[in-house]
């Protein structure tokens, strides 16, 4: 048995640099309903010491209509939903910018992710790779934006000799 690695040798083939012309829009797969179990597991396992996230009594006293889901869970799920299309064969995480939460998420809400290619350039240091930047918006089941951010990743090139 050999390592399948990220060779794309079977099943869904990852997108390459050439598949990311600026302006291309991706409507990402699946969607994800956030349950109370997801929210409690994530908040407690990542030390979120914010009682609004795990104490319904405190959340109600605070005037909230329910226990808010950790925004970091929202970010993780929305980014997770983008990975197969955008960065599954990419390099290590390079960073994210302008992560902005525009609306709270509560138990029972369903998250979706949509992205656009904002820019790309060949990698200066890694032959055969490029850097692609995307802007992503996370929406709920009503289509209301709950989150937006921008991130970049190293992406493999099909043709390492091309220079643009």
């Amino acid at each position: 048995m050999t390592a399948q690695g990220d060779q794309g040798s079977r099943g869904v083939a990852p997108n390459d640099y050439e598949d990311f012309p600026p302006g291309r829009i991706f409507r990402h797969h699946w969607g994800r309903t956030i349950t109370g179990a997801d929210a409690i597991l994530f908040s407690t396992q990542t030390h979120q010491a914010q009682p609004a996230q795990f104490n319904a009594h405190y959340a109600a006293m605070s005037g909230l209509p329910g226990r808010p889901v950790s925004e970091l869970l929202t970010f993780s799920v929305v980014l997770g939903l983008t990975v197969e299309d955008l960065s599954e064969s990419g390099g290590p995480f390079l960073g994210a910018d302008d992560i902005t939460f525009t609306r709270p998420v509560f138990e029972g809400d369903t998250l979706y992710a949509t992205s656009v290619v904002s820019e790309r350039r060949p990698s200066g240091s890694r032959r055969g790779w490029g850097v692609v930047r995307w802007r992503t918006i996370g929406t709920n089941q009503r289509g209301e934006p709950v989150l937006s951010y921008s991130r970049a990743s190293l992406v493999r090139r099909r043709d390492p000799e091309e220079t643009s």
Partner: protein
Amino acid sequence: MSLTGSDRFFEDYARGDTFEHRRGHTVAAADNQMLSLLTMNTAQTHFNADSMTGYLGGQFAAPLLNACVALALAAGLTSEDMTENALADLGYPSFRMPAPLFVGDTIYAASEVLSTDEPPARDDAGVLRYRITARKTDGTLVVDTERRALIKRRVPWQSRHEELAARVHGTAVRLLDNAPDRTGKESP
């Protein structure tokens, strides 16, 4: 101590305040695999050790910790001191991981208040903007981010917290206070 710390309202933070947060976190295999899969992340660099031999020439010997999980752990380690009374997380204007994290690494987090003068959307809370840095025990910087969070103001929230605490703890305190064998007091 009450429901939350009495010194963790918006008024308690000032630009330039620094914090070295007390607890650390050793990255467990479950942190990476369970939380990556829980959050629909399909990059097998987070959950397939075998795939690492074919990834970037095999330069990483083990799966890389999901950056979203790294961010959550770093922010979480700051949360009791910084955002215990948060009504909402507003955003992270920048987030970098200058070095990767692996299972077995231990991180500690530190915070520095950058601003408290951003106009908030509501008058019972303020916007706390602070920088979070997380380092491994050897000092390597692994998470560098800024966070903006909406924190309750002391007025009107502290008295509401005290009312709630009186309600939920009151009966037990009265029972314990009348008990003959309470610690540190002699029975009559």
